[in-house]
């Protein structure tokens, strides 16, 4: 408990105090230049259009990315658990591999893949007659490109959880459904999904919490650009904190992000409870 206090509560409390000050480079030079400003950092953030753009970008990433990611994980898990699948061990490892790769290294590779003129993705698109897309240079395409990359990088993790979930659904339920003449689609809808409901809830909670903390992908691939279209809340915090050294503002961003995540999680749990999953 003391260790948790030292390494968790103390830093959090310190960060909260920091968010009530105007810690900046002047304070870095001399602590005598530090002022307590109360909730002013929070007020200024809520009036800052770039902060709201960062919130909007992050929500875009979550709203599109999380369902895509869960669908990809579930699809891959179903394929792996299908009776027709062969070399299951190999595919399970191969699909899980992106999760354990170093994000920065694969982000650099994806930057090559996404390159407007020489990238493999545009080459493939040109083969089927699609005009080249300036993935990371066009404000409209930069976020979809990042979503694509993030989904590819992360779906393996949830896939493993789904595989475990699928194995807990008793085989006789499927058999009974088959005897009743249910099609494979209906079996998925009425047997697999209800059986997986708690797993889906867990996975979506974890994925949303993770995706709200989008940072490394834009940091490595776009530096928040073009036209600030990939500035996420965390990237905004990083810029405030380490580019401009406004640590007071950066701490306030962290607490606002925490509040956002708390609200989203509480809402999710409430919905789950009403649906009877919990």
């Amino acid at each position, binding site marked *: 408990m003391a260790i948790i206090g030292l390494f968790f509560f103390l830093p959090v409390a310190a960060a909260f105090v920091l968010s009530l000050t*105007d810690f*900046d*480079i*002047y304070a*870095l*030079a*001399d602590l005598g*230049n530090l*002022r307590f400003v109360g909730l002013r950092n929070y007020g200024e953030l809520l009036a800052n259009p770039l902060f709201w753009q960062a919130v909007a970008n992050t929500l875009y990433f979550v709203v599109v990315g999380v369902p895509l990611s869960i669908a990809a994980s579930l699809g891959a898990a179903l394929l792996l658990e299908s009776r027709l699948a062969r070399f299951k061990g190999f595919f399970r490892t191969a699909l899980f591999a992106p999760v354990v790769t170093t994000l920065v290294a694969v982000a650099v590779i994806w930057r090559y893949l996404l390159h*407007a*003129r020489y990238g493999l993705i545009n080459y493939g698109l040109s083969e089927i007659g699609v005009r080249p897309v*300036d993935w990371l*240079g*066009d404000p409209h395409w930069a976020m979809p490109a990042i979503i694509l990359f993030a989904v590819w990088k992360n779906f393996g993790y949830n896939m493993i959880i789904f595989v475990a979930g699928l194995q807990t659904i008793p085989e006789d339920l499927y058999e009974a459904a088959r005897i009743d003449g249910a099609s494979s689609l209906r079996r998925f809808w009425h047997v697999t999904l209800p059986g997986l409901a708690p797993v889906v809830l867990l996975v979506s909670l974890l994925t949303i919490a993770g995706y709200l903390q989008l940072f490394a992908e834009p940091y490595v691939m776009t*530096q928040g*650009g*073009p*036209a600030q279209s990939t500035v996420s809340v965390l990237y905004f915090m990083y810029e405030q904190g*380490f*580019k*401009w*050294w406004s640590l007071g503002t950066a701490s306030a961003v962290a607490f606002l992000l925490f509040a956002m995540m708390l609200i989203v999680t509480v809402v999710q749990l409430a919905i789950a409870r009403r649906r009877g999953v919990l």
Partner: protein
Amino acid sequence: MTARPSRRAALGQLAAGPLAACSRGGGDGTVLKFWAMGREGEVVQALMPAFERANPGVTVQVQQLPWSAAHAKLLTAFAGGSLPDVCQIGNTWLPEFVALRAVERLDSRVLASSVVTPSDAFGGIWRTNVVDGGLYGVPWYVDTRLLFYRRDLLARAGFGAPPTTWAQWLSAMQAVKRMVGRGAYAALLPLDEYEPLLTLALQQDAPLLRDGGGRGNFRSPGFKTALAFYAEIFARGLAPPAADADIGNLYDEFARGYFSFYVTGPWNLGEFKRRLPAPDQGAWMTAPMPGPNGPGAGLAGGASLVVFRRSPRKDAAWRLIEYLSTTEVQSRFWALTGDLPARKDAWSAPALVKDIHAAAFREQLERVKPTPQAPEWERIATEMQLVAAQMVAGRLTVDEAASEIDRRADRLLEKRRWMLARGRGTPA
């Protein structure tokens, strides 16, 4: 400076450079830590063996930082007490590091030096290194923005020489625009770069900040004149309301005549030579910035070398700065990187004299002005450009934009005013 090695010896060392770098750190001599950014950090390693031979017992450890992360890394290193001895620093960052009291004053060392001579530096560039009356950096290489233009298109539009005044520039742009028609433009002033507008603003007499750097001075008639001229270029359809990234491949577009004037910096000398198709190589030229009435001022940019205050090896650090400031090393550094020399006499190197595209930079550098020396300046300039982009998009008038920039600047300068009032800041 001590005797310099012969050219052949220097070349031999150049080849041995990477190997020597691996074996450094041994012995009980002085190890000098030197941080340099981007391409400079890569290339400067080749210059170190000659310095080490001239200074027995001193080895230099060059660490290369990427430009995009350099500023944050330096601040973090300051907070963590792990700054190097010598460092390359963007000269607009200097006020910030002076405010942090991180950099050593160099006045007395320069006074005593026979190598670093203010008289051989460009005045405007030198002044960027003087903060609150103290000298904190020595110019390493210089940078400014000016016109890259299509000589052939300008001639076809009836202009044999590049414009030197705003009025000439405007009529040249209008003539080019009439000639190229709807699908193309006369100029490219990327909306995501503050340098073009800032250059126009520096050409006015009015300072950009007032009250000792405690408030914005963007509602001054001078700044409004510059802002109105900038707005007019877009309002008349002479420049596309686009960011750099929207242009796609701007070298192709320049070759195609999509725009004929481009306000940009010296790194594009090399890029234009490399990237423009061979038939177009004779068609482009550079010219100093036109001003309100005759050749105008430019932006004093570039990088300086500083010694950090906490360094225990300041004498050796200063010797390295002197070495990098010698005429010969400055010329070699230009040959290796294309970075323009900070020393005027390095400009008389035959290869540089022969470079017809560099000549305009030489002329412009005599007329460069520093930006205001407030640590917040970079953020203010960023905000200025965001507001200017809104003005170009038609959401603000010139007067409204000027007031909005002032409002944002005053907000960013709030802490500075408080500092100045308590006598803690350094007035800009």
